[in-house]
């Protein structure tokens, strides 16, 4: 697991690989992550999604971009909105997140700095063909001293 590194603005940068659990589901794939803070949980959720797309293969970061998503203050909806945006980037530009820092996470949504790498048909041949990020069973809540986040992907 790649530990998070602090940035100048206090945001912590996380890189692949990060720990996550697969949620059992008959037809689709779900992931669940833990984090000490909502920001850490969101960053790990992003990278769990990236790990699915990459099939466990390495992602070489080539470019940095800011990704924003608007939501109505519900953390689960914010997480889904972020992942939908990233899925769109993958679907249209074949970009996979290799690193991520959550710059802002509040009632208006989220802003992330994402290090993207390019999907490689050889290196990422075991990656999942994610059709959509579903709203169903999306969760983002306190769990003990930390946070638990989960999402189901339609494959």
């Amino acid at each position, binding site marked *: 697991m790649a530990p998070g590194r602090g940035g100048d603005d206090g945001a912590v940068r996380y890189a692949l690989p990060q720990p996550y659990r*697969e949620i*059992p*589901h*008959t*037809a689709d*794939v779900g992931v669940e992550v833990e984090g000490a803070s909502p920001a850490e949980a969101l960053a790990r959720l992003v990278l769990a999604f990236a790990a699915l797309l990459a*099939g466990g293969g390495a992602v070489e970061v080539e470019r940095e971009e800011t990704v924003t998503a608007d939501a*109505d203050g519900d953390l689960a909806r914010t997480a889904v909105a972020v992942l*939908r945006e990233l899925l*769109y980037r993958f*679907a*249209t530009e*074949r970009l996979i997140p290799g690193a991520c820092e959550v710059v802002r996470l509040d009632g208006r949504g989220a802003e992330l700095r994402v290090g993207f790498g390019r*999907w490689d*048909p050889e290196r*990422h*041949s*075991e*990656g*999942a*063909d994610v*059709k*959509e*990020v*579903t*709203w*169903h069973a999306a969760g983002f809540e306190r769990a003990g001293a930390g946070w638990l986040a989960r999402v189901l992907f*339609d*494959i």
Partner: protein
Amino acid sequence: MQLRKVNDWLWEIPREGGMKVPGRVYSDGMPAPDDPALQQVANVAWLPGIVKYSLAMPDIHWGYGFPIGGVAAMDAEGGAVSPGGVGYDINCGVRVLATRLEAAEIRPRIHDVTAQLYRDIPTGVGSSHAIPRLTDAELEAVLAKGARWAVGRGYAAGSDDLERCEEGGALAGADPPAVSERARKRGADQLGTLGSGNHFLEVDSVAEVYDEEVAGAYGLLPGRVAVQIHSGSRGLGYQVCDESLAQLAPAMARYGPDYAAIPDAQLACAPISSPAGRLYLGAMQAAANFAWANRQVMTGLAVRALCHALRISERDLGARLVYDVCHNVAKLEEHLVDGRPRRLLVHRKGATRAFGPGDPRVPAAYREVGQPVLIPGDMGRYSYVLAGTARAMEETFGSSCHGAGRLLSRHQALKLARGRSIARELADRGIEVISRGRKTLGEEMSEAYKDVARVVGVMAGAGISRLVARLEPMGVIKG
């Protein structure tokens, strides 16, 4: 979950709470009362304007909001439309082509045939550019014209492909401007691509005929080669559904207490007559047209690939579309309800239209025997061709099952496949399979799926569809 037996094939979930109608589940034996899909059947019954029953076919399993295998018909004036009642893969569907070829002659050459199909039809993650990337104007035309666009560019099996396609291969109410820029970007270079997961293209043998008269009408003769194509609207359709869910879910309460009370947020919906409802319907219909164009382009590519691999002419191949059905769609249809014709919006999510004999919406060539109902199985066993019946028109708004449904999760299937060569096991049984993804064969192996024979057996037992023929795979390509 309370269940009341109606007959040997049909169980009812009695109305309670906010359910406007009972639920009805087709099944061989009592459904498991704790199956979460049954709760979804009950939840669908809360939708405003639902008529008669919230229905579930025997391949029912848990989905997003609507169960997969769910059918719900809404009053076209006062009812609701729900993207969850269609699904992400709008107009995922299947078509079957009949040919003049004898399976026994093709079997020794199945590797060459399968390899050519795999070369010519893009599959899997990132698959694109089966044909040159569509211009904006071309995509607009695809969204409006559906399969007709593809036929106009020479992608066809026979001259009557469009007649042998549900809705003639296009929904007239499509509203291409309702399809967002993002959805267009996802779809523009995916026309003519298969996709991945349970999508496939198969070269089959007509292994058994159960009803000679109907099979003959369909052009399915024992021992002949048939081709199946299972695919949908690709990224364009997924994006349309996703955006619609995001728009409709937060706004439901504004349509009144009936909408606010719907117990599952995944049943995001709006009145059919509302601007939001009309926008979704227009975009969904356009996405459905994209899927028909997609399957039509692949038909043309498959015909060329077969001719190339076998070094025969299209005339010798004798390919002809038997039929093309949707599995995920909502359509405005007229049905008799309590003896009176009513205009309804019929949601079929993982369900197939199955119109019976005499219905004017069935192609003339099939009107006497009923519409072909195409039910794909898994890559190692069999698929079925059924015929729609009058009983389906009475009980299920002319709807039947759509496939087998998964038994194992992908993770469980891969665990079971460890140390095995699924390709070798299939080859030993005479089935050549080529897939792009390394994990695909494990995830999609037969043990991961229910037996589709049981599913169609329920439909036949209940009189909803008649068994016509069984197809068995010889060559399969997957993503």
